């Protein structure tokens, strides 16, 4: 148990990581390799320096991925905050202290580099144990979801589908293969509800959309210009009728009717048996209309065992900052976060 060796990732470990992560990424050698490059190499905010590996002898037995996320923070400008992801412990080494050992090693490194926080958008069973180990939670929060019948055949090209007219707004809603500059431009104009929100600029949209193990489905609503957009995500390693949900990772619109038309169109047209979306930062009028759009709400019950799969943000101070006057000292307050445009799946 004590013979684990924890190291930072180095290029010589690449083949071992690609093979090891098949348990989680399931993209095969080529797909996993491309995913590693995308997440830890092409990420505009952080390189692979904090990817943490655990070894027993020469065997890779654990990994913590750490990628960069980029936030607008009132009073601080733009701030990179590292996110934990892609955690895998080899089956024979589960049920023990390895995860905690890797995490402790990682946090020590972050502290030494004066990185103040580590984030994790967790919807996984590790959450309670992390909270017991000094992490702080924002959430969990509700999700909306819809189950649909699926045709059993693969959908054709997303952007080959015909545009539709939104029944409420009259806007033309068009499927697109990629994001367009009007999307980040609209996101930038939004009123924010919190003082910490993810940077949604062209660079972010471009990077996210380049995920080699994901498929993104874009809708744009136009009525004398762009009046709204929606982006949904589905893993590329599942079939259209496979078990993983399709997640609406963001939907923005200039008015509620356009927003409802976009959601309704997505629920009707994106692939997957289940369509899901976060509800945390929806305006009340939009949340109240989810039922009429075919989505049902799942709210937190307060019981850990029941809420374990609901989304939450857990974060841990590395100790690099201390005290109320320190930079970013308010991050543990739920009200400072505006998580529109963020979804755990949106970064997978």
């Amino acid at each position, binding site marked *: *148990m004590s013979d684990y060796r924890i190291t930072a990732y180095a290029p010589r470990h690449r083949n071992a990581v690609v093979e090891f992560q098949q348990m989680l990424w399931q993209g095969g050698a080529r797909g996993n390799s491309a995913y590693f490059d995308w997440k830890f190499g092409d990420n505009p905010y952080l390189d692979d320096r904090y990817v943490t590996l655990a070894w027993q002898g020469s065997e890779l037995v654990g990994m913590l991925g750490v990628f960069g996320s980029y936030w607008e923070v009132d009073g601080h400008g733009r701030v990179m905050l590292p996110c934990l992801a892609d955690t895998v*412990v080899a089956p024979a080494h*589960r*049920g*023990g*202290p390895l*995860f*905690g050992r890797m995490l402790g090693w990682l946090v020590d490194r972050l502290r030494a580099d004066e990185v103040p926080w580590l984030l994790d958008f967790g919807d996984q*069973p*590790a*959450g*309670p*144990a*992390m*909270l*017991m*180990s000094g992490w702080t*939670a924002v959430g969990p929060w509700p999700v909306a979801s819809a189950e649909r019948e699926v045709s059993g055949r693969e959908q054709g090209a997303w952007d080959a589908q015909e545009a539709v007219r939104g029944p409420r707004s009259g806007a033309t809603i068009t499927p697109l293969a990629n994001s367009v500059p009007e999307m980040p431009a609209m996101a930038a104009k939004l009123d924010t509800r919190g003082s910490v929100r993810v940077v949604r600029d062209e660079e972010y949209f471009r990077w996210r959309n380049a995920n080699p193990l994901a498929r993104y489905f874009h809708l744009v609503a136009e009525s004398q210009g762009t009046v709204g957009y929606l982006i949904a995500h589905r893993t590329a390693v599942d079939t259209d009728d496979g078990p993983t949900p399709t997640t609406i990772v963001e939907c923005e619109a200039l008015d509620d009717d356009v927003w409802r038309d976009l959601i309704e169109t997505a629920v009707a047209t994106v692939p997957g048996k289940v369509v899901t979306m976060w509800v945390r930062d929806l305006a009340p009028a939009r949340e109240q209309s989810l039922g009429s759009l075919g989505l049902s709400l799942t709210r937190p019950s*307060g*019981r*850990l*065992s029941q809420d*374990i799969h609901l989304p939450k943000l857990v974060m841990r101070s590395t100790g690099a900052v201390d005290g109320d006057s320190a930079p970013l000292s308010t991050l543990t307050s739920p009200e400072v976060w505006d998580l529109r445009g963020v979804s755990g799946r949106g970064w997978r």
Partner: protein
Amino acid sequence: MNVSPDRQDVAQTVLDCLRNKLFLDGVTVDTHLIESGLIDSVGFIRMFVVLEEEFGIEVTARDLSLERFQNVGSISRFVIEKLEEGGGSEMPVDVVRA
């Protein structure tokens, strides 16, 4: 008539749960669950489910602390606190004493 859970009965039931429902081989009343490496993050969730089912209590985020869940004794104290504050819907007869 007030009934209060018996500490020894609760502790025995917790121990039985850890052994027979969570299959933590070798666990004793003194075993430190985390330091021993017997239980991991997923194991905690299973433990919460078992405690909720066995004692009719609810485990919430506010209940989380390493001290509460470090061994059979601390878990038993937590269960008793929950039962006494009314967290238990139906207290099993084998963990209460009239």
